[in-house]
């Protein structure tokens, strides 16, 4: 019995963290978030692809590394921890899983190999299936798609989009097709970009197995939720580390603020709340990889629970920094906002708990 990340997983995770510490300091994140440096942003994405994040989940026969979701959570945790301004959840987790589950051999070979050798990059537009707002309606008829999708994940530099309708039928369109209109959204989290996509009678390549069932989209969303949870856990850990560090430097009333119990107890509470989330996350990823009966419930519970925990940590860690925590200068807000957006993506906690109840038959 061994419960936890393996040495390989930890090694990979540390490599991603080292790369980000080197290439994506807070100053760089600020520049990128202010829209001032798209080249640097592309460099960071490319650097991570050189480390292999695009091929993690792609089977070896399509040129990938053939690793499992637990591996991907290890990476995602590092990305969240460094508020990395890059694509991952949609392009390199949800897309390969959806295609591997839902595609026929031809589709798999074309798209999965494309992702693995970085010729193809996907954005993911599944909002219609998770929780359609404003009556956006994706209609897929034969091999054409129309309608709109909000909050498309990882649209930047994408060559293709995965889009689903309300029933979980998934198809692939080319991002630069003339009927595809991309409208940039501005969220609180400027480390990542999200868009609305309008489809106006666009050619679509339907993933063959998704015509008859919604297994592929369910798996893809389960994985996406687990990966977003990992991102929030990474971001939360950074916030706790920063709060503890600050409390050992800042003095008031002639003593370090970390010696005040009000501050200590906030840090202890954040730690006690976050620590079990790691175990839940790994357990859920392991269930996704090898315990199919428990996988869906665990994915829902992981997303919902870590979202609640991370929200409180984002608040308390900011408070520990006093006024500095509230400034743009200190940059705590990047983590606060990353957590805030992750919480809503692929289902807010209440919606997901509703789903968790359904899965259990109540």
């Amino acid at each position, binding site marked *: 019995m061994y419960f936890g990340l393996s040495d390989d997983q930890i090694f990979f995770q540390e490599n991603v963290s080292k790369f980000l510490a080197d290439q994506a300091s807070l100053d760089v994140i600020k520049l990128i978030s202010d829209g001032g440096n798209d080249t640097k942003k592309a460099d960071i994405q490319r650097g991570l692809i050189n480390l292999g994040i695009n091929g993690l989940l792609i089977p070896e026969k399509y040129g990938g590394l053939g690793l499992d979701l637990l591996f991907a959570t290890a990476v995602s945790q590092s990305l969240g921890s460094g508020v990395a301004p890059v694509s991952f959840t949609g392009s390199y987790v949800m897309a390969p899983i959806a295609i591997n589950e839902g595609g026929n051999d031809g589709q798999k070979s074309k798209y999965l190999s494309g992702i693995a050798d970085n010729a193809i990059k996907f954005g993911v537009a599944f909002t219609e299936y998770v929780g359609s707002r404003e009556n956006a309606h994706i209609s897929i008829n034969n091999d054409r798609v129309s309608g709109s999708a909000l909050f498309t994940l990882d649209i930047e530099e994408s060559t293709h989009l995965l889009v689903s309708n309300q029933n979980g039928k998934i198809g692939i369109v080319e991002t630069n097709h003339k009927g595809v209109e991309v409208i940039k959204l501005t969220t609180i989290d400027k480390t990542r970009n999200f868009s609305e996509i309008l489809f106006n009678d666009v050619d679509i390549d339907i993933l063959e197995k998704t015509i008859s069932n919604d297994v592929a989209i369910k798996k893809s969303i389960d994985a996406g939720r687990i990966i977003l949870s990992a991102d929030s856990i990474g971001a939360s850990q950074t916030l706790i580390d920063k709060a503890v560090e600050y409390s050992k430097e800042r003095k008031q009333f002639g003593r370090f603020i970390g010696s005040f119990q009000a501050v200590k107890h906030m840090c*202890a509470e954040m730690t006690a709340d976050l620590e079990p989330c790691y175990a839940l996350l790994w357990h859920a990823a392991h269930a996704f990889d090898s315990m199919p009966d428990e996988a869906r419930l665990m994915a829902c519970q992981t997303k919902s629970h870590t979202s609640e925990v991370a929200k409180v940590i984002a608040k308390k860690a900011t408070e520990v920094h006093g006024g500095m925590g509230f400034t743009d200068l200190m940059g705590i807000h990047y983590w606060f906002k990353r957590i805030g957006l992750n919480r809503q993506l692929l289902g807010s906690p209440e919606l997901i708990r509703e789903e968790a*109840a359904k899965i259990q038959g*109540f």
Partner: protein
Amino acid sequence: MDLSYGPEYKNFKKEIQDFCNDWKGVNFSDGVQISLGQSFDNKGKTITRTEWQSILIERGYFARSIPKEYGGYGGEADIIKSRIIASEFSNAEIPPAMSGQGIDMLVPTLLELGTEDQKKKYIKPTLLGEMIWCQGYSEPNAGSDLASLQTKGELINGSWVINGQKIWTSTAQYSQMMFCLVRTEPEANKHAGISYLLIPMDSIGIEVRPLVDMTLKAGFNEVFFTDVSIPESNIVGNRGEGWAVANATLGHERGSLTNPNATMNRVNSLIEMMKAETVNGQRLIDIPVFKDRLIQIQGKVMAFQSNSLRVLSSKLNSNQDTKIASMIQKLVGTEIRHELEGLAIDIMGEIGTLYEDSPHIRDNGSWQFTYMYYLGLIIGGGTNQIQKNIISERGLGMPREPKAKEV
């Protein structure tokens, strides 16, 4: 990640399942204290508690790694086997081996620090449930600040003579023995002046006064000592080393206060209750707000359960560091349990407040009882505020509070 126990445990699991089948419904002629929030089938054989303890020890299902000469099974410690036993017993509703402060705290302490004579004399009857122990640490003026305790022990003519008072002493009214912290070196500083003594409860000069707690049961006691005299040899460790001896056991206590699997069983009982009960003709489980709170606490318990698997794994794999994951267990486990029991009461509404032998009561009032009982555990065993001090200072390395002047 590997959650399997390996093929060598398959047979063991089968063996335990067979044992559970044979003993299904076992119950005890001599009043049993069974942990709350669990139900046991009692339609099988009736034996004594001590007989049950011996059966479990003989087969290595209890006291597995304790040497034979001290009354144990004399085998290798095996955490996975312990876990299989716990979960199969719980599935089959078979009562587990006894626990309590003697078994959970004193026995490990004696094994580690006791003399040969002490081990021979005390461990076996304790394991068999013939010798019940209470823990005499807290005093009226020494709770969280335990090291300020003042109960006095003087060595006079080869005997320790003890005067003073303990309080909050759980089970003192049934106990044969107390392990007790006593100030024996009044000149030494706070922590260095304490010794760890073993006191027979039938000694002349001991008076036990039960204290009724919030649940309206006499859960703990005051214990008064007036010139109580015990042999000089009833000391564990040397004079003045009692603080270190006690600390060896505090860890054992905290580990035993919370059980994530029992907590998950409780979530499942709550779900059953919500399916069976209605308000305004609607099943409780169908009411969205209740359902949302249920799923929320289920998620917390799942996380806590996974955390304990991680801690278990670190005991089997020495390269894993789970210092923080272990440190948070008392705080998290007691708070979750209290919240969960309270949720059940909210969901039942007025019916949730019924108690004792009231008409319309559900589950013998166990939700209300356990809700209060766990508040006691939030306070006992080192309050949860003290836990937060420990997590922040020892876990996160935050600065200690400056020493305040005595007031």
